[in-house]
């Protein structure tokens, strides 16, 4: 018998199950785009068939990190920029969990940038949602790695001289096997993309455009978006890496000109996830690690026995 009967249990899942019974102390401002992510996620999870108890949501620090307080699943609100290493270890220790990491653009592309690159390259089987509001929200409106060039804030009063990061291109070149962008202003597309991302076997990166009406009033993301996958203007094949790269190059910066393009930019469905690769090398157990600690009959090997001869 598995020690984790919530995993893989077949049942109807109601999205209200994800609603915490207590009002979260950490509250987002009215009109915050983060509510949009929450809503889409609550719709997507039941659609993927994942119950709150087989879902592990790992967040970083920032307004985005408060997502945990609004979503009643297993949750781990970690430290600034470090959601990915925590999450991917959980996904290795128990590959049967639905592991979702979430954080902000400062959290994920700034302080956690190194982890982003490496988690993408390793293609861990998990979903990573970055709440991209082009600003540091929680610390009151400083410039973030996705703030447009020239953006003025209290810490950069003369305007930023830095070119914003290109998250989609970065994810793709780092090796993510699924790269998408969606926006809080389009809940239906957002839900669908999250479903695809969670069903994807490998690292699924979703750059989620969210508005911060408190600190970033002039972000262009509020304007209507174009779904590249539906648009007649963009006829391309998201499974073709070169196409995806080209499209990102052409369109990613248009965000700052007010032309918001969303959709699945890239997906590579036949590439094995890191978990799969590691399992094939004999470096990942079949069962979740925790199973054996609950199993009274498990034979704990005097493990290094096979190595002890070399000490004799």
């Amino acid at each position, binding site marked *: 018998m598995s020690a984790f009967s919530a995993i893989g249990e077949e049942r109807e899942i109601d999205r209200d199950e994800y609603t915490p019974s207590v009002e979260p102390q950490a509250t987002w401002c009215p009109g915050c785009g983060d509510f949009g992510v929450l809503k889409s996620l609550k719709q997507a999870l039941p659609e993927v068939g994942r119950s709150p108890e087989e879902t592990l949501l790992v967040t970083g620090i920032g307004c985005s990190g408060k997502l945990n307080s609004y979503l009643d699943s297993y949750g781990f609100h970690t430290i600034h920029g470090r959601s990915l290493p925590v999450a991917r270890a959980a996904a290795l*220790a128990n590959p049967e969990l639905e592991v979702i990491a979430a954080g902000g653009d400062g959290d994920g592309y700034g302080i956690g940038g190194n982890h982003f690159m490496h988690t993408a390259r390793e293609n861990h089987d998990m979903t990573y949602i970055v709440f991209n509001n082009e600003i540091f929200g929680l610390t009151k409106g400083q410039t973030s790695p996705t703030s447009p060039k020239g953006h003025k804030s209290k810490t950069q009063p003369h305007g930023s001289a830095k070119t914003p990061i290109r998250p989609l291109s970065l994810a793709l070149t780092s090796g993510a096997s699924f790269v998408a962008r969606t926006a809080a202003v389009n809940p239906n597309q957002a839900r669908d993309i999250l479903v695809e991302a969670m069903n994807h076997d490998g690292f699924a990166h979703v750059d989620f455009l969210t508005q911060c009406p408190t600190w970033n009033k002039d972000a262009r993301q509020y304007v209507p978006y174009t779904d590249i996958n539906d648009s007649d203007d963009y006829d391309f094949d998201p499974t073709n890496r070169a196409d995806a790269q080209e499209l990102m190059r052409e369109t990613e910066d248009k965000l700052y000109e007010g032309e918001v393009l969303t959709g699945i930019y890239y997906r590579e469905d036949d590439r094995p996830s890191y978990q799969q690769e590691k399992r094939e090398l004999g470096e990942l157990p079949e069962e979740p*690690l925790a199973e054996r600690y609950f199993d009274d009959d498990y034979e704990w090997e005097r493990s290094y026995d096979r190595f002890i001869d070399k000490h004799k």
Partner: protein
Amino acid sequence: MADDELIWRIAGGSGDGIASTSQNFAKALMRAGLHVFTHRHYPSRIRGGHTYVEVRASADPVKSRGDGYNFLLALGDSFARNPQEGAYYGNEEVKPLSENLDELREGGVIIYDEGLLDPADIPDFEERAEENDWHVYPLDLRGLAREKGREVMRNTAGVGATCAIAGIELEWIQELMADAMPEKILEPNVDILETAYEQVSEEYDVDAPGIDVPQGEHEEEQLLMSGSDAIAYGAIDEGCRFIAGYPMTPWTEVFTIMSQNLPELGGISEQVEDEIAAAALAVGASHAGAKAMSGSSGGGFALMSEPLGLAEITETPLVLVEAMRAGPSTGMPTKPEQADLEHVLYTSQGDSHRVVLAPGTVEEAYDHARTAFRLAYDYQIPSVVIYDQKLSGELTNVPASTFDREPNPSMGKTLTEAELADEPHTEDGKFHRFQHDVEDGVSPRSIPGQKGGRYLVTGNEHNPAGHISEDPDNRVSQVNRRFEKMDAIRADLDENSLLSPHGPEEAEYGILTFGSQQGTVEEAVDRLNANGHGVKTLSVGELAPYPVEAVEAFVESVDEVLVVEMNASAQFRGLTQKELGRYGEKLHSLLKYNGNPFEPAEIVEGFETSIVEDGELPGHETKFVPAAGD
């Protein structure tokens, strides 16, 4: 010094096979019934540079390197042999002969490779040899190796010559070679070994130095182990099946051993992008229900202070290893020091607590690793095993039965789904992770994926249900509860003491130490008592929570205390004074921080000059700091 011991030093260039040859030599002597202890000296480079290993062997237990040594095998050096048109591996000349003479004892033996080294290059060599009654054996080790096999096998020729002069039975070495070497190279090696043995026996008077390896016998089977081996094996026996790390000397040794073991055991090893990630992975894996560890050396451990604090406030069990080397910053990568103590004790912001354990010997390294895991999982707290480059690399014989202990797969207070379904774990249908007001401050946890156990854990202060809270009363009770664990752990450790006392109970003086200096201090204490002083020592293996009562009793029981540690700022003495709250005038420091560990004679000298004669220590290598009250 004692005649009943052999301290054999093999010296040459890095990459000359010094490490493997000495390891095999030590193992052969161990198998023959002797106690062995190896000391390793190497520079921070891969090839070239001067390196040596000492193997000390005696019929009695040996706990440290000796003072100096009595047998030198000076090989040539790869540096000298590989000049490709002036392209050297480095700009530093390797001098396996001259570099090593200062510590060679009177009456000692020198074997050198005459094809590669010339004592004429060394000023006053002959005078020194005569003055010190050294027995010098020039041998064409390279020529012999070339003739019978390959040049690299000149190590074997040197070992053969050693056996002839030190009265070591060739079979001991041959047997080991047969076990350790592939068929192809075994034959020429045995040939070289025997030829060198015969040549030396025929051409020279091998009895002249009067060095004969003592006879010994072990009551039970012994294993040749390093501190890093022992830590890794302790972790494995305690059920650790997940490790994440990033290489940094000397932590890399534990990381490597674990990585070689874990996949075979259905465990997971991850080399990741940096140390922040490494420790964060260990936290994530532990949260998901694995027994997990990470570790590093000073600079890498600095990066881990964030995830360490996260583990503390979220009450996620976490084991970290800190293998100290000389700092700050990159410091001296291959040299031991004990100067990261305060860093490990106090890293991470806020009122954060952790267990800190410091093994003093290879055997203790195994025990402490096990205890670190047990405490981390029983009390849901980070625990750190702190040791140093000396203990990580030194090889010594350990009774095989040390490793016969039962595995411990217990995850501590972790509920099964059946238990989760019961009150009082579930209030209003939800699991309250930090609810239970239990005596030791530990509240049981669930594992993601378990039915009925879902909860939020956060690095922010939180209420019993796990939700973020800045309520002042809640804050106080959460801080207090986390703090209470330390009392419970203290009581636990009192029952399972990691303190190592040594010497006569009734003694006038005491020496306090911690970590890798333990064996050296114990040897010094034996000598001091033999010299007519009344001295005992206490090696403190539990640094946090600190064993206040036991150390207080020790300090009370003697007139004066010398505190021995390898750093310049007397960190261990500082900790002791802070924890005990007094005795400033009774604790004197003996410090060493030149990159080399203490030798027993230095401690004897330090004790005699500072405590007995109330004077100041000579020399620049050790530093005597009078008690704070002086």
